[in-house]
């Protein structure tokens, strides 16, 4: 059963794909600039998904409802996917333009650092089998990690400086306009809807997996989580 959100996401993705290929090439960079239509949305989602993981983590710690933990985990997994894509497309853009796969551009470095923070977060989540412990520990690390992101940003920017041409990673840059801007915004919007659809589906999977793993009510396991046993008077 495919949800309406997923149909919308599919259609918008298709439109963004077509738009990205048919709009006229950039006056300066030619067709290469089209890579922006996949790179910029991915980079944007790298940040968005991390923010969502933070918010969901805080919400879990407040409400203790597993729903939030599932969203936090799902958003991190989808987030690491887009962060990886942002890095790959960044390299694919860099090779023809600068002749190198990797440039120490402040934003690429920041994206790479976030990529590894995500990997740490996901590795942490996989290490726990008790959902409660996993949710709590992941939420705490998520908060600490995201609290560091602005500091990472400052340190990298001070170190490398922002002397990169703004069109490389800045969405909606004044230098591109008209149809090119429309294609870029369409792509960013489409990818965001795709992100939402993927996260909701992945969170659903996480919920099912937790249900499957949890011992059902009648299978009590002595020594681990103890369900509240009624006191029964039984004098033998």
């Amino acid at each position, binding site marked *: 059963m495919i949800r309406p959100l997923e149909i919308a996401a599919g259609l918008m993705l298709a439109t963004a794909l077509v738009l990205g290929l048919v709009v006229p090439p950039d006056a300066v960079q030619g067709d290469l600039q089209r890579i922006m239509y996949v790179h910029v949305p991915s980079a944007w989602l790298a940040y968005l998904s991390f923010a969502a993981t933070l918010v969901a983590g805080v919400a879990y710690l407040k409400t203790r409802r597993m729903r939030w933990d599932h969203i936090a985990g799902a958003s991190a997994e989808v987030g690491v996917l887009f962060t990886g894509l942002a890095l790959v497309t960044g390299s694919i853009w860099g090779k023809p333009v600068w002749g190198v796969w990797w440039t120490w551009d402040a934003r690429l470095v920041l994206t790479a650092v976030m990529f590894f923070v995500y990997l740490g977060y996901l590795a942490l989540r996989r290490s726990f089998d008790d959902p409660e412990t996993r949710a709590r520990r992941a939420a705490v690390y998520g908060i600490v990690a995201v609290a560091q992101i602005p500091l990472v940003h400052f340190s990298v920017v001070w170190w490398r400086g922002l002397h990169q041409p703004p069109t490389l990673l800045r969405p909606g840059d004044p230098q591109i306009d008209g149809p090119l801007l429309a294609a870029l915004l369409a792509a960013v919007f489409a990818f965001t809807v795709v992100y939402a659809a993927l996260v909701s589906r992945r969170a659903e999977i996480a919920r099912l997996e937790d249900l499957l793993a949890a011992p059902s009510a009648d299978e*009590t396991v*002595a*020594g*681990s*989580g*103890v*369900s*509240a*046993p*009624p*006191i*029964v*008077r*039984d*004098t*033998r």
Partner: protein
Amino acid sequence: MLGLLRVMATLLRPASGTGTVLGARLATPEVESIRPRIGFVAHDPALAPHLTLAENLYLVAALAGATRVAADRALADVGLAGAARRRVVHCSNGMRRRAEFARMLLIGPSLLLLDEAHVGLDPEAFRLVAHVVAEVTGRGGAAVLVSHERERAAAMIERAVEVRDGTLAEVAP
């Protein structure tokens, strides 16, 4: 059985239902005021491996606001006066278990929770369990002893409760 003991020790939040320990409602901030009155001896002893038995007890004394003299006396009471300077890593399991009993004597809890405390103890050490329990109940406190060997503990039990597939059933002691 560790789960239920840890709930009673206010260390594990009950998944559902409520209860009170020493007058404090579980899973509420109230428990923090009664925690110092709870003594909990779990399976593996709460001892720093590289510190000596005495140093471990002095640490507990410092945190619980007791004196070093009291710590030495507690060690002597459990027959570890001679081994006080020995590092935990060089002590036998029996000696580590006795050090745990010394810790209980030192902090003098109102609620004593012993999880399989006498498993694998020689008879002489088993008498220590009775001694520690008596010390707590003597002061009007309560002791909860979890064990598979009911007969051995029978002497010091007033009430017994059995766990059968998740249900607690009170049985004759």
